[in-house]
C-alpha cells in the first residue's frame, strides 16, 4: 500500500478531505509544470521526473491500464479514499457507448474505495425521461447521471455545481475552453466534462489522390478534384463518385453517407449542413432564434438553402441511404462503401480500426462552408471569397451530479476518477466507448500515431479537431428547455422535405410555426434566459 494512502486511511473523514484538497493543490502545481499538452511529455513525466514519488505506488495494471498516471483523481488517489458502507447510484446509456466505460470505472471505483456502486443502463430513447421523471417528482433516484450534453437546458435546475476542488483538478484544467463552456450554465459549471464531440468531414484519401480519378473528375466537371470546401462542392464531388467501383474492391461505391433517418440524430446532420449558410460571422444574437424577439429563424433562407442541398445530396447516397441512422453511416463510410461522410468521430475511428481495409486511407477536414451566407440583419445574402465556415460543436456525452444526491462528494470523486488521465487515454482508444478528445492533451498527433495510425492521418485528425476550437463562428446545439421538442419538430420537417412530401421552404415554415407554439407553451422569457447561454458561446462571450 502506498504510504500516503495508509496515512489517509487512518485519518478521519474531515482530515481526509483536507488532505484531499492538499493533494489537489500539489498535483495542480505538478501538472502545470509537467503537462505540456503532449502525451509523450506525460510518459516522460511518469517515468522520469515523477519517478521518485511514484516509485512506491501500487501496480494498477490489473485494472486494464498500462500504468497509473499522475493526476488529481488517479488510481492511487482514489485508492486512498474509503467509502465503505456507502452507495452510489448511477444512470447511464446502454452498453457499449458510454455505458461500458461507466460500468468499467464503477467497478474499479467500488474496488478501490469499498463503495457499493449501482449502474443502471438505459437505451438512448428512454434516457431523457428516465432522468427527468425522478427530477420532476422530487425523487433522489440517481447520484450520477450520464446523458447528452444538449439536455443541460432541461436538467440545469436539478444539477449540483461542480465544487472548486474539482474545477481545479488536473483533468479539468486540461479541458478545452469550448467544452468547459458546454458544461457551464449561467457562469457555473454544472456538467462534468468527460467527452468531446463535434462534426467534421471524413473522406477517402486514396480516391482524392488517385490521378486517374482526378482526370475523370476534371473531364466531367471542369474542376480540379479537391476536398470540398462548400456544401455545393460536396454534393458535386459526391454525385461524381456515386455508382461505380472507384476503389477496385468489386463493390459499387457511392459519394456520401449521412445520418438521414428522422429519429436517429438526423437533426444534427441538418444543423451541420445548414450552419454555414445561416450562421453569419458578423451577425450576433442567435442562430436558431433571434435572442431579442425569440422569433424562430429556422425558416430563413440560410436554413432553407442547407435543406435544399441536403435533399439534393440524396442522389449520392448508397441504396437505402435516406434511411441511414448513425450506425449505418459509421459502417458505410468506415466499411469503405462511400467517399465522404460527416458526423461524430465514430466513422473515422471505425475506418482506422486495425482490421479495416481502408485504414490510413482516410482524412479529416473541417465541415464544408459557404460562399454565400444569409445576413438576417440586412436581409440579403453576403458573398465571401473564401468559404465561411461554421463548425458545429455538436452535442456529446456529459455527466453530472444530482442536486438531490446525498453522496455528492463520492459522486464527484467517481466522475473525477472516471475521467482521470489513465482512464481517459484508455477509453479514447476504444471506439465503442464513445469517448472522444476533449482535453488539450488529446490533440497530440503522437498519441494517435502510437495507436498505429499513419502520421498524415493522425495529423489531419488532430489539426481538424483542434482548429475547430479556435473558430469564432461556431454553432452549438439549442441547449434550452424543451430541446427535445424543438429538435423532434425540426427533424420531422427535414424528413418531410427529404421524402419529397413538402418543399424545403414549406417544411421549414411548418417547423417555424411549431417552434413558435413551443415557445408560447414553455414561456418566451424562460427560453430567452436559457438561450442567452448558447448565444454567449456562439458570440464568443465566454
Amino acid at each position, binding site marked *: 500500500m502506498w504510504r500516503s494512502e495508509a496515512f489517509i486511511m487512518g485519518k478521519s473523514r474531515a482530515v481526509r478531505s483536507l488532505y484531499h484538497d492538499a493533494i489537489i493543490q500539489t498535483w495542480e502545481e505538478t501538472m502545470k509544470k509537467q503537462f505540456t499538452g503532449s502525451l509523450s511529455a506525460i510518459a516522460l513525466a511518469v517515468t522520469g521526473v515523477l519517478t521518485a514519488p511514484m516509485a512506491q505506488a501500487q501496480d494498477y495494471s490489473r485494472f486494464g491500464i498500462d500504468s497509473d498516471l499522475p493526476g488529481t483523481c488517479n488510481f492511487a488517489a482514489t485508492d486512498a479514499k474509503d467509502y465503505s458502507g456507502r452507495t452510489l447510484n448511477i444512470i447511464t446509456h446502454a452498453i457499449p457507448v458510454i455505458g461500458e466505460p461507466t460500468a468499467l470505472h464503477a467497478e474499479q471505483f467500488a474496488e478501490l474505495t469499498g463503495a457499493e456502486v449501482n449502474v443502471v443502463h438505459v437505451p438512448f430513447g428512454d434516457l431523457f425521461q428516465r432522468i427527468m421523471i425522478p427530477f420532476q417528482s422530487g425523487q433522489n433516484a440517481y447520484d450520477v447521471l450520464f446523458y447528452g450534453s444538449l439536455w443541460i437546458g432541461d436538467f440545469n435546475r436539478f444539477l449540483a455545481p461542480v465544487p472548486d476542488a474539482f474545477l481545479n483538478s488536473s483533468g479539468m484544467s486540461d479541458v478545452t475552453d469550448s467544452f468547459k463552456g458546454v458544461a457551464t450554465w449561467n457562469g457555473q459549471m454544472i456538467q462534468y466534462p468527460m467527452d468531446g464531440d463535434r462534426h467534421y468531414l471524413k473522406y477517402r484519401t486514396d480516391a482524392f489522390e488517385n490521378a486517374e480519378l482526378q482526370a475523370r473528375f476534371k473531364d466531367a466537371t471542369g474542376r480540379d478534384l479537391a476536398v470540398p470546401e462548400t456544401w455545393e462542392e460536396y454534393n458535386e464531388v459526391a454525385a461524381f463518385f456515386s455508382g461505380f467501383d472507384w476503389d477496385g474492391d468489386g463493390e459499387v461505391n457511392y459519394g456520401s453517407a449521412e445520418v438521414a433517418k428522422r429519429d436517429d440524430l438526423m437533426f444534427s446532420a441538418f444543423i451541420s449542413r445548414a450552419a454555414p449558410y445561416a450562421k453569419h460571422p458578423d451577425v450576433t444574437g442567435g442562430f436558431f432564434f433571434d435572442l431579442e424577439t425569440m422569433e424562430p429563424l429556422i425558416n430563413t433562407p440560410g436554413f432553407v438553402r442547407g435543406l435544399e442541398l441536403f435533399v439534393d445530396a440524396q442522389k449520392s447516397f448508397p*441504396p*437505402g441511404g435516406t434511411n441511414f441512422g448513425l450506425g449505418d453511416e459509421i459502417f458505410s463510410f468506415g466499411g469503405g462503401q462511400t467517399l465522404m461522410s460527416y458526423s461524430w468521430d465514430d466513422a473515422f475511428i471505425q475506418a482506422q480500426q486495425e482490421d479495416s481495409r481502408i485504414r490510413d486511407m482516410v482524412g479529416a477536414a473541417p465541415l464544408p462552408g459557404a460562399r454565400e451566407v444569409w445576413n438576417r440583419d440586412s436581409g440579403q445574402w453576403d458573398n465571401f471569397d473564401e468559404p465561411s465556415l461554421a463548425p458545429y460543436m455538436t452535442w456529446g456525452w456529459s455527466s453530472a451530479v444530482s442536486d438531490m444526491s446525498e453522496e455528492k462528494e463520492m459522486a464527484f470523486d467517481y466522475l473525477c476518477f472516471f475521467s482521470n488521465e489513465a482512464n481517459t487515454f484508455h477509453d479514447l482508444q476504444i471506439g465503442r466507448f464513445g469517448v472522444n478528445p476533449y482535453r488539450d492533451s488529446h490533440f497530440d498527433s503522437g498519441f494517435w500515431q502510437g495507436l498505429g495510425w499513419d502520421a498524415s492521418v493522425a495529423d489531419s485528425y488532430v489539426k481538424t479537431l483542434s482548429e475547430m476550437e479556435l473558430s469564432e463562428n461556431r454553432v452549438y446545439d439549442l441547449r434550452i428547455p424543451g430541446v*427535445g421538442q424543438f429538435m423532434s419538430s425540426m427533424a420531422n420537417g427535414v*424528413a*418531410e422535405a*427529404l*421524402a419529397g*412530401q413538402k418543399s424545403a421552404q414549406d417544411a421549414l415554415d411548418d417547423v417555424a410555426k411549431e417552434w413558435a407554439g413551443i415557445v408560447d407553451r*414553455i414561456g418566451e422569457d424562460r427560453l430567452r434566459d436559457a438561450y442567452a447561454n448558447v448565444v454567449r458561446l456562439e458570440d464568443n462571450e465566454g
Partner: protein
Amino acid sequence: MLKPKHFFLLPALLTLVAIILFPLIFTVRVSFSSWDVYQAGLDYIGGRNYTRVFEDTRFWESLLRLSSLSFITVTLQYVIGFALALAVWKQMKGGRIFRVLFLVPMMTTPVVMSVIWRTMLHESLGPANDILSAFGIGPVPWLSSAAGAFVSVVIVEVWQWTPFMFLLLFAGLVSLPREPYLAAAIDGAGPVRTFWQVTFPLMAPISIGALIIRLIEASKIMDTVYILTSGGPGTATETPSYYIYIRGLRDFQVGYSAALSLTYLVLMIITLTIIAKLLMRFLVGKDA
C-alpha cells in the same frame, strides 16, 4: 343487499381499480394539465390540449394511415390464415409439422423480428436485394421510399401475425359439426360451393372474433414501425401509437400526449364497435 359472500369479490374489484380505473382516471386528469418538460404536475388548463389535438394534422394523418395499414394487413392475415387453416384441416402428409411451423412467427418477439427484417431489407447490405438482383430486379427501396416502407411494414405485420389468425381459424374449423358437410356431399356440392355455402357461414362468428381481435392489436402497432422505419421516410409510416410515443416520451409533452391517447382510445372504441356491428350484420345476418 350486501352479504358476506360479496366480500369475496373485493380483491378482484380492488385489483380492477388499481390496474385499470386509477391509471385511466389519472390519464384523464393529466390530459387537462400542461405537464410538460418544464412544467411538472397537475395544474388545470381546461380543454386546451384537446383543442390542440383537433388542430394536429399530423395526428389525423397518422390515423388515416393506420386505417389503411390495418385494413390491408388484417385482410391479408385473414385470407392467408384461412387458407393455411383449410390446408392443414383435412388430413394431409406432415400436417402436424406444418401446424407447428405456421405458429413460429407468432411466438417470436416483435422487436427482435423487426430488427431481423430491417437487416434483411437493408438496401445496401441486406439479403433481400441480393436475392432479387440475381434475377435482375432492384435494388428495391424497401425502407427509403414511402411506398416501399409501407409495403415493408405490411410484410412484417402479415408474417408475424398471420399465425395468430391461423390458430383461431383452425380451432374454429376443427370444432365445426360434420352434419352440414354430409348434407352438402349428398346434395352433390363441390369443394368451392361447400366452402362458400357451408364452411364460410359456419365460420362467420369465429371469423368476426378473429378479425376484431387482430384489428384491436393492429391499431396499436408501434414496435414494428419504431424498429423498421421510425415512421419514415418523412411521415409515410407514422402511426398514432408511434406519434403518441414521440410526443409523450421523446418530447416529454405529458399532458398533451395524455389528451392524444384518450382521443385515440375513444376513436378506436367507437370505430371497432361499428366495424363489429357491420361484420355481424353482413356475415351473420343479425346484430350482435
